[in-house]
């Protein structure tokens, strides 16, 4: 158990480290930085520029800068945002929390809806329900995230039932915790719904195809012949046997949700990583860009690691192997 998990954890950390080195190298290789953009404004002398360069350590070698960057994590910095004049980590952490607040419920809800619907579609293979689901999934897969977000925004604006963006009402900063909680959930509704709709189709399709595969197997037919109830048959016998590829998909669906959530956050003005990254890209705020991408990679790697753990728990074959 522990050996398998430790090996996976080390692999994940190694991958994260490699990503961070390559991203850092990429950012350093690019011509221009925050200061050279400022030069265009034309109010800074070359000497002042040189002094700032030395101050920010922009005149050091690559290795030194990379290790300084990583080391600054120990005192909670992860580089420095030049446009906010603040340590990057301080800026990123609340944004990371907000993004998780959005994506984690969406992840859970989409799986809670997607798995039963997928099993249902598999159990009615070729029937009208299956065909309706297939058509609906085809439509959802072709629906661009941007359009979905704009439609959600349009609904919010037209009905006035949902807040059109943001994550809290303006006049609640010193209200009771329960009131603020309610307000947060009310604001979460729409963006989470958009994320769930966006993530649902691939989940349903995969659940359907892997459960359908199990249903063709001989042992399943035997269980069917024993006259088990369809519910037990599907959820007790078919789903666990079909779970293996689905658990890997669970890890992947985090990546999928992250890309969608970037759009959702920007359009529905949810103060998560997405808008921060966009702003930092516009301002060439290197460390914030770097930090956002590293954090998004962290989510993805963590998701895959979590999937590995789940796989270990659910699949005896892997336990035997290690």
């Amino acid at each position, binding site marked *: 158990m522990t050996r398998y998990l430790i090996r996976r954890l080390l692999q994940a950390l190694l*991958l*994260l480290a*490699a*990503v961070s080195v*390559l*991203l850092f190298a*990429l*950012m350093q*290789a*690019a011509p221009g930085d925050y200061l050279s953009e400022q030069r265009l404004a034309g109010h800074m002398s070359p000497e002042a520029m040189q002094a700032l360069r030395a101050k920010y350590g922009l005149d050091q070698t690559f290795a030194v800068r990379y290790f300084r960057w990583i080391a600054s994590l120990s005192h909670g910095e992860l580089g420095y945002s030049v446009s906010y004049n603040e340590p990057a980590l301080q800026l990123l952490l609340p944004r990371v929390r907000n993004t998780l607040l959005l994506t984690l419920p969406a992840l859970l809800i989409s799986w809670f809806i997607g798995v039963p619907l997928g099993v249902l579609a598999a159990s009615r293979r070729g029937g009208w329900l299956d065909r309706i689901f297939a058509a609906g999934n*085809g*439509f959802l*897969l*072709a*629906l*661009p*995230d*941007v*359009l979905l977000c*704009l*439609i959600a*925004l*349009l609904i919010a*604006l*037209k009905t006035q039932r949902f807040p*059109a963006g943001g994550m809290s009402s303006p006049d609640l900063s010193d209200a009771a915790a329960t009131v603020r909680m309610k307000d947060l959930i009310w604001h979460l509704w729409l963006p989470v719904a958009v994320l769930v709709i966006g993530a649902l189709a691939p989940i349903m399709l995969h659940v359907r195809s892997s459960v359908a595969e199990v249903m063709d197997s001989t042992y399943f037919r035997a269980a069917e012949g024993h006259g088990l109830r369809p519910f037990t048959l599907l959820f007790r016998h078919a789903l666990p046997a079909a779970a293996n590829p689905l658990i890997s998909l669970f890890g992947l669906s985090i*990546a999928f949700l*992250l*890309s969608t959530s*970037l*759009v959702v956050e*920007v*359009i529905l003005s949810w103060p998560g990583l997405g808008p921060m*990254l*966009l702003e*930092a*890209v*516009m301002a*060439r705020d*290197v460390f914030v*860009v*770097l930090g*956002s*991408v590293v954090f*998004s*990679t962290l*989510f*993805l*790697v963590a998701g895959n690691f979590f999937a590995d753990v789940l796989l270990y728990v659910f699949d005896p074959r892997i336990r035997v192997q290690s």
Partner: protein
Amino acid sequence: MRASSKLQWAAGFLVVLHVVVIFAGFIAPYNYRSQDRLHPFAPPTRVHLADCSGKMHLRPFVYGLKDSDQGFGNYVEDCSQPLPLRFFVQGDEYSLLGMFHPTLHLFGVDAPAQVNVLGSDGFGRDQFSRLLYGGQVSLFAGLLAALLALSGALVVGSISGLYGGFTDDALMRLAEIAVAVPSFYLLLAVRSLLPLRTGPVVAFLLVVCIIGFLSWARPARLVRGVVLSGRERNFVLAARGFGASRSYLLRRHLMPMTFPVMITQMVVLVPQFILAEVLLSFLGLGISEPFPSWGNMLAYAQQYHILISYSWMLAPGLVLLPVILAYHVLADALQEKLQLTA
């Protein structure tokens, strides 16, 4: 049989769409930048057969717009002068295939009126015309980026599969790293390294190159798999035994084997890349005004008042739906067909 008819429909639709978009100048009644500042956000023009007094006309016609008494931006039709819809009319000069500069348009109306099939935007630019010109950017950005990504994948994948050993390990670890970063975050990070304010052509090439260069990893793994298994096929081993060089093996035997994978990957990647371009331009990091892309056209719909009042501004988003659907149907049908032949 069903798969092939699906394939024909989807492919036919996409081919027609691309041809329409290439001939945007002829089919669009206006230029993408010609403005009618007196009539911002003109609603889709209604084509009449009966005039205001109820009299029927043989030729379809339109009315010009005049401001209603509710103030600027609210229009009523100016009933005094019906202007017939004409076909093959002279209008703005446009560039066709970069060589010809004709002025003939498929349809149009005479001067005071405008025919805006899908309404007009805040500068009074015809939304339908801009949609067609924008398709030139969005559709072809996806296509070119996919070509770029696949040629990268072909090179990396075949080197990796053919040479094996350390080269293979190094390349595949690199691919693993490239896949580990959520793609759109990586896209934005790389975009931040490149100049933000550029001309339309440079911006287009930048977008295509970024999307293409960052997406080689997944198809490269597939190509590597095909090359790896192909290397052990008997006829390849025979050719090797006769002393065929590596480049010959690659050219004559292995690359043709990757062809089915390349085709299906192409069809899978193009819609993803179309969306990536749309998203970049939507966020203001892709093609910039005045040249239209479906992304930067859709960006206007982010503003609340535009989204509420002028629903036709969502058209560039809606047009994506059938395009992506067609690509998905095509991908499914191709995969089905290839499985049948395999």
